[in-house]
């Protein structure tokens, strides 16, 4: 470990890089050795870390407030006004042809957003979106009638997603919670999954609690695969809670009866990922 001087720390902005976990292991160790004996750097670290946490807190508060405001606003609307609002939105979709060319760009952007948000979408919805996207590309040469039809189809797809999101925003009682047991590599071969998830046909969301054996990584990636190996959901940048667990809520309609494998990988700050745990489970339906 090379000794580090204060000028080097300032020049290379190590305080911020350290807080963002952007230093290599050797740089990090050297910087830790430095700030353990440098009151100025330690003070800067404390302030920057505190400010960073404050920024994240403010963003979280604002997001919660905006969500509450939107729901309250919708709740205040009478049924008639809600229908009128939907009617108005439909009129917007059917706006004159002259605007369609300009809207085409907007449509592509919407598709991009939909793709970005698809982590929570079931596989068949993703496929539909991918198909729509491919067809939209061929639309460049096609007439505006087909374009309008596709727009309507896309609007329906988005409406279905909004409905699913609204469902999640409604308080729910007795949400099934499953503590999944991890298996070590080699233990899965040829054996039925140790975790059995009995779901009724009418079940809403399902909560999975995954206790991590190690929390050595700054973030984690979760990947859910069906029996045939097809990935049906994944999320990056996950951080364990104060009990070193990842708590994941999935809509039960994503889970048809069958075997699944939920794999967790730890992501190092340099982007490399390492398998941490696997949670195979079997979904069975009961009436």
């Amino acid at each position, binding site marked *: 470990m090379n000794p580090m001087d204060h000028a080097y720390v300032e020049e290379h902005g190590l305080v911020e890089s350290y807080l963002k976990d952007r230093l290599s292991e050797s740089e990090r160790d050297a910087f830790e050795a430095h700030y353990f004996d440098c009151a100025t750097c330690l003070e800067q670290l404390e302030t920057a870390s505190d400010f960073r946490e404050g920024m994240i807190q*403010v963003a979280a508060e604002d997001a919660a407030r905006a969500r509450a405001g939107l729901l309250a606003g919708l709740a205040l609307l009478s049924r008639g006004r809600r229908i009128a609002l939907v009617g108005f939105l439909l009129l917007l979709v059917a706006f004159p042809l002259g605007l369609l060319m300009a809207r085409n760009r907007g449509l592509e952007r919407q598709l991009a957003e939909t793709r970005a948000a698809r982590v929570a979408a079931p596989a068949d919805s993703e496929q539909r979106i991918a198909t729509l996207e491919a067809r939209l590309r061929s639309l460049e040469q096609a007439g505006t009638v087909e374009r309008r039809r596709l727009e309507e189809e896309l609007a329906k797809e988005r409406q279905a997603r909004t409905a699913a999101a609204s469902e999640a925003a409604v308080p729910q009682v007795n949400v099934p919670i499953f503590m999944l047991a991890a298996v070590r590599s080699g233990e899965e071969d040829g054996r039925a999954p140790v975790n059995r998830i009995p779901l009724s046909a009418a079940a809403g969301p399902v909560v999975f609690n995954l206790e991590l054996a190690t929390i050595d990584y700054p973030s984690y990636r979760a990947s859910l695969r069906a029996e045939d190996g097809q990935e049906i959901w994944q999320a990056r940048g996950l951080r364990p809670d104060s*009990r070193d667990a990842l708590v994941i809520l999935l809509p039960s309609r994503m889970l048809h009866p069958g075997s699944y494998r939920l794999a967790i990988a730890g992501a190092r700050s340099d982007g490399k990922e390492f398998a941490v745990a696997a949670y195979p489970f079997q979904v069975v339906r009961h009436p």
Partner: protein
Amino acid sequence: MADLVRRIVSGDPAAEAELVERFSRAVSFLLRRLARDEAVVEDLYQETFRLVIEKVRDGELREAERLPGFVSSLARNLFLGSARTGGRRKRWQADPEAAETAPDPAPGQLARLLARERSAMVRRVLAELKNDRDREILSRYYIADEDKEVICRDLELSDLHFNRVLFRARQRYRELFERWQETG
């Protein structure tokens, strides 16, 4: 540093207290970054100093000027060991009687008060910024976790300008924090 190490080796209790005072803040800061549970931090803090003193006395620190790095790496290794074995939580699970004395992991009243104050101070810093672009810089850097290079390229900013925005925001936050500490 050499004198401090020499006195610890010779068993001077005042030197041990001086060691704790000298590295207390840094050890706390590092452990809080690594472990989110305050009870774990508390355990590891005690254990770090106990081990440092023991190892220094046993002559395991060969170069006295390496003491800061010795303390920091010991604290980090203790945390990693604790995380691997599950630390306190696993012990409580194994021993239901010990679990009765386990502290509530939910943030305490003081932590909630600090969080509220911190949020209010950050809001004030943001409100005092002269333009929206500076607010955008802070949001993208701290909340969206974007890289400095990306933000600078998008907003056509120099390194210097970027650093200045961050520096001023943190400086102002520090002033507000110190004032709050004095009045609180």
